[in-house]
């Protein structure tokens, strides 16, 4: 177990370094940051002076080493647009993204799992077919389109829910803000969570359905039924439990995806999280924010994969045997 964990950690470190290098090379192609930082009438001399002060004239290798050394100490520099330390900006934005991701993951699980079980157990019923068609919509429609559709239905036409922002937030401790404690905060969460979680919900539903269909056909379920165990026990204790291994893998990976790819949803709903900040940073060639975001995302994926690997040990006894 320890050896396994160490190996994984080493791999993770290499992944992070490669991501940093890739990200850094990419920034040379997104445009000139200086043009976004000054007014159009700013003279060429002033632009060059700024470029020099920011160290953008140094060779790429030197810039990269400087970036990595500072990043290792959690110093990501100063944002070109906001002119504030990047770490401060992220600290302010992280709660918004995590709360949104949590809410949409909950939505995906709480709605997706029961739908999946139902569709798996009653594969020919009309409701199951409805679920499947709905899930097709969830998988095939692009996120921004669903978001705008929801806004026009629930904000503009019905005027039930807000079309943008987080509503009122409550400060907890020195750096966490939450929208879970106010009515407007909760209302503001509904549309973005559905938009962000819809894809994951359909994925989980289809996955559970497929796994259930598979498991129900196996011998041990048939035997359990033959022994006269009640349906509830067979379906939930024996069948469902055995469908969960792939579901946990996917959920874990998808949680990373939710956090990392909340960018579109956050942009549509002007949700003040990291994703929105990242997209604005790309438009304005704000290299410090972009690099910090990419590293953070890579870190999230690596961490989640690591946790999922460890979780297997606890769910699947077969992995525990035969491994050091």
């Amino acid at each position, binding site marked *: 177990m320890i050896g396994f964990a160490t190996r994984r950690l080493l791999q993770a470190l290499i992944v992070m370094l490669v991501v940093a290098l890739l990200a850094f090379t990419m920034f040379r192609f997104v445009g000139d940051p200086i043009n976004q930082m000054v007014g159009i009438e700013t003279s060429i001399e002033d632009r060059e002076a700024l470029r020099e002060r920011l160290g953008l004239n140094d060779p790429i290798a030197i810039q990269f080493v400087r970036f990595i050394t500072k990043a290792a100490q959690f110093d990501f520099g100063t944002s070109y647009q906001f002119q504030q*330390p990047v770490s401060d900006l992220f600290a302010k934005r992280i709660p918004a993204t995590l709360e949104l991701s949590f809410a949409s993951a909950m939505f995906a699980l709480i709605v997706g799992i029961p739908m999946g079980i139902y569709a798996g157990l009653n594969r020919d019923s009309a409701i199951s077919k409805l679920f499947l068609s709905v899930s097709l919509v969830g998988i095939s429609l692009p996120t921004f389109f669903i978001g705008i559709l929801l*806004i026009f239905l629930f904000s503009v036409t019905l005027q039930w829910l807000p079309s943008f922002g987080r509503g009122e937030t409550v400060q907890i401790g020195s750096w966490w803000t939450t929208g879970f404690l106010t009515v407007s905060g909760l209302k503001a969460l509904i549309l973005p969570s559905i938009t962000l979680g819809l894809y994951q919900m359909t994925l989980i539903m289809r996955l559970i359905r497929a796994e259930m269909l598979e498991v129900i056909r196996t011998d041990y379920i048939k035997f359990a039924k033959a022994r006269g165990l009640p349906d509830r026990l067979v379906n939930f204790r024996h069948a469902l439990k055995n469908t969960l291994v792939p579901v946990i893998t996917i959920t874990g990976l998808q949680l990373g995806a939710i956090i990392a790819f909340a960018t579109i949803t956050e942009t549509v709903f002007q949700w003040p999280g990291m994703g929105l900040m990242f997209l604005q940073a790309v438009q304005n060639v704000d290299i410090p924010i972009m690099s910090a975001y990419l590293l953070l995302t890579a870190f999230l994926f690596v961490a989640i994969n690591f946790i999922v690997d460890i979780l297997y040990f606890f769910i699947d006894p077969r992995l525990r045997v035969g491994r050091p």
Partner: protein
Amino acid sequence: MKTKTMFMAAAIAAAGTVSSVQAETLKFSFQGTLNALDPYSLNETFTLSALGNAYEGLTRRGADLQIEPALAERWEIVEPNRWRFFLRKGVKFHNGNDFTADDVAFSVERVRSEGSDLTTRVPADAKIEIVDDYTVDFVLSGPNPILHYEWDTFYIMDKEWTEANNAAKVTSASDTTANYAALNANGTGPFKITSHEAGVQTKYEKHAGWWDEAQHNLDGVEFTPIGSDATRVAALLSGEMDMVYPIPVQDIKRINDNSGTVALTGPELRTIFLGMDQMRDELIYSDVKGKNPFKDARVRKAFYQAINIEAIKQKVMRNLATPSAIMISPFMFSKAGDFQRYPYDPDASKALLAEAGYADGFTVGMDCPNDRYVNDEAICQAVAAMLARVGVKVDLNAQPKAKYFAKILASGGYDTSFYLLGWTPGSFDSYNVLSNLMNCRDETGAGSPFNNGGWCDEKVDSLTGQILSEIDPAKRDDMIAEAYKITHDNVYYIPLHQQGLAWGVADNVDLVQRADNQFHFRFVTKN
């Protein structure tokens, strides 16, 4: 009895007013963010406009853009090179400090210091002399009739406050720690900024001790940036926002059709135009080798006459544009009416091309932004289609502004053959247009940094020099007109139009839409 009734009526009326005088908060949204609050860190319209509600300059511009006294009560030119400003007495900053000549002198030095993006507000060689607490002199190296034209956005900061908070250095991206002035504001304006989270929300509160009589009836203002056009429009339609800008031209009808909202449109100052490389001996992006077709005025005129500006106005801009014959908005130049566009005439265009030796046309690459100006990419596509009709094949390269400007401006080595650009002179004056877009430049851009096509006309250069120091307005305007006439006759540029402004406003809000696209809360009333 009668007095009693009148008293009752007065009481009812008073009660009525009391209930309508509840706290009015204006909620508005813009597509971009308000970044640092430091008034010298970014020379950009929205930033200056948002900060202009909290900070004030020596002058300000009214609803019709006329220069008005603000922190300076009046000013006079005592000698040709010496301007005297008489400061307003009794003005207080938001923190209670008095506004004096020291603050002006401090601001002048700070705005010209390293890291400031507004260094040109005060000429580098101008000296400031404090005569007394409420009088300052600016000593110039030569006459300059437009010294104060941009001072409505040169905001005066409080010396004591700035120094006490270690913010004397202008906020810059090369800072390693957050600058106090980037996160806090202390001006003399009608509103104070009470909270600012960059990119998320900025809150303003009425400044009760403002020196001027308030026209507005607001107690507070909340600004939220909304980047997505659809969401911004939705926020207005659903009543969550009182005002949003800009709105996409294609949504104007929808906003007008909705009860409770109206789209406010008007001409903006920015001129959109096409430029051509007239400097290189061979175009970078063209199939014509060994020579540069744009060096031939006939080719440039052929391009001009191939463009159906009315079609662009109606189809691409949905009528929200004013076709222009010169490179400046008629708001800013009294003789603009003397100029006429060359008529749209594809046959004349073909004839001109044939005369210049390109009867079969040629291919040219065109650079275009796709997220900078109103429908910029669509304009370029329309131009490409129109040029195709006269035989010129355009390879369009439309890209986001971050990449576009990096390619076509000095920092990218003016890597373009044919491009679309927009220009608003921040000073509201033609000198800015002439010196930035119309003078000769070298390869690095020295001389006229935004003359991307690099054309050079000595007569325009010498006129520009004279215009800078000519004090007599009538003579000055004649010289400007002459410079524009040379540009027009030689088709050094192809002006297209002044794009329009479009703001979405709730019916219960009254405001002033200034043609410079600045939004000032002091003109707003909300019922």
